[in-house]
């Protein structure tokens, strides 16, 4: 930690040299160079009245942040400007705030109210940006506020605000994972949203917060599929990746039958396929019994829907979207259809080299499983001399994977050119690739081997060395035939210096010494000579060679071997010494040597299996393609496993539940049997209603596809009753598709007509809608999407016209439509009304906020001496009551005392304090703290007083009068006042005696930051009515068994918080009221009890921080 910070400073320091470069900034010219106490001067500028100065200061501060320099000491000066009128200053302050809030949590709280105000702004963009900044401030204490704000925003009128809410969810989750349950509720709500704007963001939130709750997707699955094409590109990626996972859990493997039928026909030469087949065979075995009865695989229409709706996205300009669709097809589509992705992926190879890198990695994995897919594009993987090395190597990998009997000759010719390249790493990779082709394709093994042998005479040593290594592997497969190659290689030992190559040659000669009986001893002789100068790896192989020769041809090599072993005995490397000792014992028979030496020959000259040269990309496809984990071939944090296909499809009806429910509500009149048919139509209508911009390009389309779905449905009807529903559903869909495509043709002709209609339509609709803003947007959208609207309209028409076969149905359908429209037009007005009401309230609240520092008119401190209005006078009168009446209920004995100084730490002096709840007479804005000093020491303490008070800004302290003398064993009390500024920040100070100083701090529970006020029931209700919305916090709780009666509830609440009881007509409710001490904001609490100990706590408070903390405290008090 310290190291890294040191590094930071150093970096910062070094970059400060280049500082004047920023002088180019027209706004910040000159000043940079002129003075060095920049921060002071920045502070001054920030404090000035001129926006231009502030802006300049902020620009320089942001430039500092950008360079990674620490600007945190400016925090107080910057935060003050959070409410600045100038938009750019404001934006820059936000930037600063988000960057440093985490480090300066306390000060950051000062800015919260600005954002809270922004959350209620009538302009949706301001609401959204307020939420965005608020949720970006990483301060744990405002978690409850964020939660509330998110909840509120999730049901906002504006989809943009809802989108921002979705963005805020992962932020809050990362700040406080305990909020998960509540956040999931919000996610669930937002998932049901029907706008494209929200879809991507909420799925992102889903993936980050609760990817395991796949059940939340069911009801939204079809909607997501249909909206997909209109979602912005980044959202598309996230949704497609999520749907891939979803589909893997919900649908059957489309290839399960095929793999049985064409087993072997499409086999690649890698083991991988066998593995897979085995797996599948296992599955098949399990499924064997039902197999006999099982009809051919029929794809779930929802599965088809997903494939169909994602396909056009292969044409996206965004590589990430293309990749996402490609992986979806790879993981989900039937084998015959996967081919379509190849073309798009090959296209991506013309993009930036980074994109190529990632795409090639994925193509490499795919090409192992489905070689046929990329074969037509073989030439696209040819290497260009300008490619970076890593791309070249990946392309080689793909080429190698694609090699088969038919194309191997072209590939090898290509490889020959590559070997001449100047990029040596690439050449080495090419040679290895040749080796792999040779092992995989028997026909060309000899050709490859010959080619590699030719390379042995290459001038470049690296090439030779790599060839030797590859040849060694190839020879292992059939050594008998190739003794001449081995001889040739033996000669090479004179020239080759690369250790790995030398070692390989020695191993080969040792292994096949029977094939080269004359040469082998000679090689050993040469090696023995140079033994001491060899690398370790070569030395080990020399020992091996010696041992093997000794066993086969001891006559000639006995002496040589002993010489080598002696040399090794004194080698510097212990591995070599060990090996020599071990081998000597094993091969040289002595009296001591045990039974093992009999088997020495078997041990050394056993047949070794030939190495398998396989692709490093083999089996990588157990990671979801396109993911980071796949790229790294290691599980990255937060990676969601791609589940295996289920053996039996889960109930497909979970996805249409919603539709039925909706239908039920809408069509109570229509007869029951029609429901099944309606369902898909209803679904389709849903599409229409929410029809986004380009939906004319939605799902339906080419003849092939509709034919597909028809055939599906045809086979579907063969199936049991279980699938009949979905089958008929897709059938009707299919026929509708037909009519629609016709429409599209007619579209052009109708165009003019439609536009006219459109002009009428918005007018009609605007009557039903009241929110002006929403409407404006709609208008805009209308004009944008004349086409889509008009289409939906004409759709209605043509539906009724073209109802040759189902005339009855279409009638009822029209009915349904109307009803649905009616049903849909109903809900909106409600929120609108609510909203306007809210706005009114908010307006008043806003006013309050504005006046804040100079306490609002209704708010009067207890000890205010002057009151200008009658109202406050009256309140003051009633207050005397309040002080008296709660006295009965909250007895002083209940006061909790806290330890300030323990007697051990205080060397005999112990101090306790309690909040006396008495008004602090010198200053009404202070909380009285009563301190009790006890001297447990044997000697007396003198001059007890406090010093060096450290406070957060705004806080004040009235010190207690000095206690001159506290004799041993005596106790004294004193009262001090602290203005906590309505926050639970601690007041730190030193407690001093004549000899010692002790650091102590007083932190108030939130309940002590208020004082009771007396309100009548009506006043209470009125005030509560004004503190709704964001200012109201409600929690459900179960009361502790001991505190179910009214009396205890009152007692516990008043103990937890300094509130007074408000008289109340109902005995089911207890109400309390108070005001915060400093600002006098009203605090209202209500405990409503229900049967069986259930209860609901409601707190209304202008200060949301206080409100949320109070809820926590009271909850604790009531449940314990």
């Amino acid at each position, binding site marked *: 930690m310290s190291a890294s910070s040191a590094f930071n400073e150093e970096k910062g320091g070094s970059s400060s040299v280049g500082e004047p470069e920023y002088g180019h900034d027209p*706004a910040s010219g000159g000043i940079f160079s002129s003075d060095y106490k920049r921060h002071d001067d920045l502070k001054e500028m920030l404090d000035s009245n001129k926006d231009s100065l502030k802006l300049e200061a902020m620009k320089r501060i*942001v430039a500092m942040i950008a360079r*990674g320099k620490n600007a945190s000491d400016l925090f107080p000066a910057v935060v003050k400007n959070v409410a600045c009128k100038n938009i750019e200053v404001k934006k820059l302050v936000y930037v600063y705030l988000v960057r440093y809030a985490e480090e300066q949590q306390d000060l950051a709280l000062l800015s919260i109210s600005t954002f809270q105000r922004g959350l209620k702004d009538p302009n949706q963009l301001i609401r959204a940006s307020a939420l965005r900044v608020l949720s970006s401030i990483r301060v744990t204490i405002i978690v409850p506020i964020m939660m509330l704000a998110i909840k509120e925003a999730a049901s906002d009128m504006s989809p943009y605000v809802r989108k921002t809410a979705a963005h805020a969810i992962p932020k809050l989750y990362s700040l406080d994972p305990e909020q998960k349950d509540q956040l999931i509720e919000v996610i669930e709500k937002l998932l049901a949203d029907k706008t494209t704007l929200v879809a991507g963001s909420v799925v992102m939130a889903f993936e980050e917060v609760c990817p395991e709750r796949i059940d939340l997707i069911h009801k939204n699955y079809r909607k997501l599929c249909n909206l997909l094409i209109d979602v912005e590109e980044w959202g598309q990626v996230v949704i497609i990746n999520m749907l891939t996972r979803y589909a893997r859990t919900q649908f059957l493997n489309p290839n399960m039958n095929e793999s049985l039928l064409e087993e072997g026909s499409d086999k690649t030469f890698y083991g991988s396929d066998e593995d897979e087949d085995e797996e599948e065979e296992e599955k098949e075995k399990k499924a064997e019994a039902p197999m006999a009865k099982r009809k051919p695989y029929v794809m779930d229409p929802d599965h088809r829907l997903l494939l169909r709706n994602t396909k056009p996205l292969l*044409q996206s300009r965004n590589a990430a979207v293309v990749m996402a669709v490609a992986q979806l097809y790879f993981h989900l589509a039937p084998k015959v259809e996967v081919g379509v992705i190849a073309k798009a992926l090959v296209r991506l190879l013309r993009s930036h080299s980074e994109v190529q890198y990632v795409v090639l990695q994925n193509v490499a994995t795919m090409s192992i499983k489905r070689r046929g897919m990329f074969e037509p594009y073989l030439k696209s993987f040819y290497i260009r001399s300008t490619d970076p090395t890593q791309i070249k190597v990946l392309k080689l990998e793909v080429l190698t994977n694609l090699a088969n009997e038919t194309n191997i000759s072209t590939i090898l010719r290509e490889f020959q050119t590559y070997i001449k390249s100047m990029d040596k790493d690439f050449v080495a990779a090419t040679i290895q690739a040749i080796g792999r082709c040779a092992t995989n394709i028997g026909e060309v093994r000899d050709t490859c081997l010959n080619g590699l042998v030719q390379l042995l005479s290459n001038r470049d040593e690296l090439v030779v060395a790599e060839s030797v290594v590859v040849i060694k592997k190839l020879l292992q497969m059939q050594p008998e035939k190739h003794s001449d190659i081995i001889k040739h290689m033996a000669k090479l030992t004179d020239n080759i210096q690369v250790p790995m190559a030398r070692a390989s040659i020695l191993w080969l000669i040792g292994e096949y010494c029977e094939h080269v009986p004359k040469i082998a001893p000679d090689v050993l002789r040469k090696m023995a000579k140079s033994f001491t100068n060899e690398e370790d790896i070569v030395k080990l192989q020399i020992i091996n060679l010696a041992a093997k020769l000794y066993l086969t041809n001891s006559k000639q090599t006995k002496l040589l071997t002993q010489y080598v072993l002696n040399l090794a005995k004194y080698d510097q490397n212990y591995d070599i010494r060990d090996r020599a000792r071990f081998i000597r014992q094993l091969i040289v028979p002595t009296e001591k040597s045990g039974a093992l030496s009999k088997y020495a020959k078997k041990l050394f000259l056993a047949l070794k299996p030939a190495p398998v040269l396989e692709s490093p990309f083999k089996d990588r496809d157990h990671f979801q393609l396109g993911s980071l984990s796949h790229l790294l071939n290691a599980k990255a944090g937060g990676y969601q496993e791609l589940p295996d296909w289920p053996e039996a499809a889960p109930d497909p009806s979970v996805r249409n539940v919603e539709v039925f429910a909706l239908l039920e509500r809408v069509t109570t009149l229509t007869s029951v049997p029609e429901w099944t048919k309606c369902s898909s139509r209803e679904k389709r209508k849903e599409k229409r209603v929410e029809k986004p911009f380009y939906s004319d390009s939605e799902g339906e389309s080419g003849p092939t596809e509709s034919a597909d779905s028809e055939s599906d449905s045809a086979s579907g009807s063969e199936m049991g009753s279980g699938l009949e529903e979905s089958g008929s559903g897709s059938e009707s869909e299919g026929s509708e598709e037909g009519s629609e495509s016709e429409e599209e043709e007619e579209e052009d002709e109708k165009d003019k007509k439609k536009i006219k209609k459109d002009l009428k339509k918005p007018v009609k609709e605007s009557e039903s809608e009241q929110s002006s803003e929403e409407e404006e947007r709609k208008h805009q959208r209308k004009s944008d999407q004349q086409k889509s609207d008009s289409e939906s309209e004409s759709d209605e028409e043509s539906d009724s016209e073209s109802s040759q076969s189902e005339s009855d149905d279409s009638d009822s359908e029209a009915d349904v439509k109307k009803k649905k429209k009616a049903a849909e037009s109903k809900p909106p007005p409600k929120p609108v009304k609510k909203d306007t009401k809210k706005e009114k309230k908010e307006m008043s609240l806003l006013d309050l906020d504005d006046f804040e520092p100079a306490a609002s008119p209704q708010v009067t401190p207890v000890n205010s001496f002057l009151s200008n209005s009658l109202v406050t006078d009256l309140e003051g009168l009633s207050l005397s009551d309040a002080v008296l009446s709660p006295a009965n209920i909250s007895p002083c004995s209940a006061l909790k005392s806290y330890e300030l100084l323990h007697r051990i730490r205080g060397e005999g002096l112990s101090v306790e304090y309690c909040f006396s709840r008495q008004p602090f007479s010198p200053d009404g804005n202070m909380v009285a703290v009563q301190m009790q000093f006890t001297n447990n020491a044997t000697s007396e303490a003198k001059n007890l007083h406090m010093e060096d008070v450290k406070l957060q800004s705004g806080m004040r302290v009235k010190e207690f009068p000095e206690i001159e003398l506290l004799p041993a064993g005596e106790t004294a009390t004193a009262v001090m006042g602290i203005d906590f500024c309505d926050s639970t920040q601690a007041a730190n100070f030193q407690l001093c005696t004549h000899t010692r100083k002790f650091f102590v701090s007083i932190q108030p529970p939130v309940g002590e930051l208020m004082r009771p006020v007396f309100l009548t029931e009506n006043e209470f209700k009125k005030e509560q009515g004004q503190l709704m919305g964001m200012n109201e916090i409600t929690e459900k709780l179960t009361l502790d068994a001991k505190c179910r009666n009214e009396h205890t509830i009152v007692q516990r609440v008043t103990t937890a918080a300094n509130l007074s009881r408000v008289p109340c007509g109902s005995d089911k409710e207890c109400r309390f009221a108070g005001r915060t001490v400093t600002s006098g904001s009203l605090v209202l609490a209500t405990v409503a009890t229900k049967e069986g100990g259930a209860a609901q706590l409601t707190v209304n408070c202008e200060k949301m921080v206080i409100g949320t903390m109070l809820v926590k405290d009271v909850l604790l008090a009531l449940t314990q």
Partner: protein
Amino acid sequence: MIHSLFLINHSGDIFLEKHWKSVISRSVCDYFFEAKEKAAEPENVAPVLQTPHHYLITIYRGKLFFLSVVQTEAPPLFVIEFLHRVADIFQDYFGECSESVIKDNVVTVYELLEEMLDNGFPLATESNVLKEMIRPPTILRSVVNTLTGGSNVGDTLPTGQLSNIPWRRAGVKYTNNEAYFDVIEEIDAIVDKSGTTVCAEIQGVIEACVRLTGMPDLTLSFMNPRLLDDVSFHPCVRFKRWESERALSFIPPDGNFTLMNYHVSSQNLVALPVYVKQSISFFDSGPCGRLDITVGPKQTMGKTVEALMVTIHMPKAVLSANLTATQGSYTYDLATKVLVWDIGKLNPQKLPNLKGSLSLQAGAPKPEDNPSLNIDLKIQQMAISGSLLFIRTF
């Protein structure tokens, strides 16, 4: 997703950092520097690096590294594509994407980055939307701003983010309505030593500049759409319309944009416009070699070949080149061993030729591999694929 972004210049200085979640120390870049040291060329640094706690995803654009830090699983292409989008936006705003320009406009850059990502997830990446919020700097505006204390931040709130067509802002007005389309086609071919084409493919891109009032809906159709083998579109293009009738139907963004990319299938044999005769040989006897290159036109359909340039990566042993060019000029960079011959216009009557001797390092073995030649050229007013287009406006 994207946690932080560091901009690093060619020499390895971090000159800008931006964090979208909590702050990550810039020491995380050390892993990248390590990898950069190992790789000889900046292009050879792996785009994705794994460190103990983070993943670094890097792109290299305009001699700058855009290094993003990712902490959890995120599709690498997603991040890479986004980083390129960032670079594109810089290019769009400042005319170029270089260190000095970014440093000069550091505040605008920072504001842009702030708007483009929210908590690591892309928020507004359309240049039209961004320009509504943060105006690109112009010389005039910066002068005005310094005088009046104005700012680059838009006064009006951006409405583009709210609409379903985020690429176009509302209320566009022009007195002159105009739309231009540039069709740029590239042939990418590999030719072997003997002069036969190993593979050749044509890629095209249609760049558009549309300045039309209101919400125009355009339709573009091709003479010969069958030629187009594979296409990708700007999001404004309606996919289905393309699939059904092979026409481009779209509401265009305002200003410059790339409408579509296409690929002409390599099955049709592509006629290369030029040929090259080359002979490069090194002698066993002495430390020298000979080079002789001639470029001539092949099938140019009567158009002139321009901006012809030949680049040769020489073997390391080549010390210097003593050549004469009949046309254009040549340079030989000793450090990178790259010979560049800039020819310019190709004159069919008098073929350009480069001839001369190469001197090799004494004692070094004779390089046996033939260096590869890269030939770049441009031909105006010619579409190799032969697909023309028509446009209709509504």
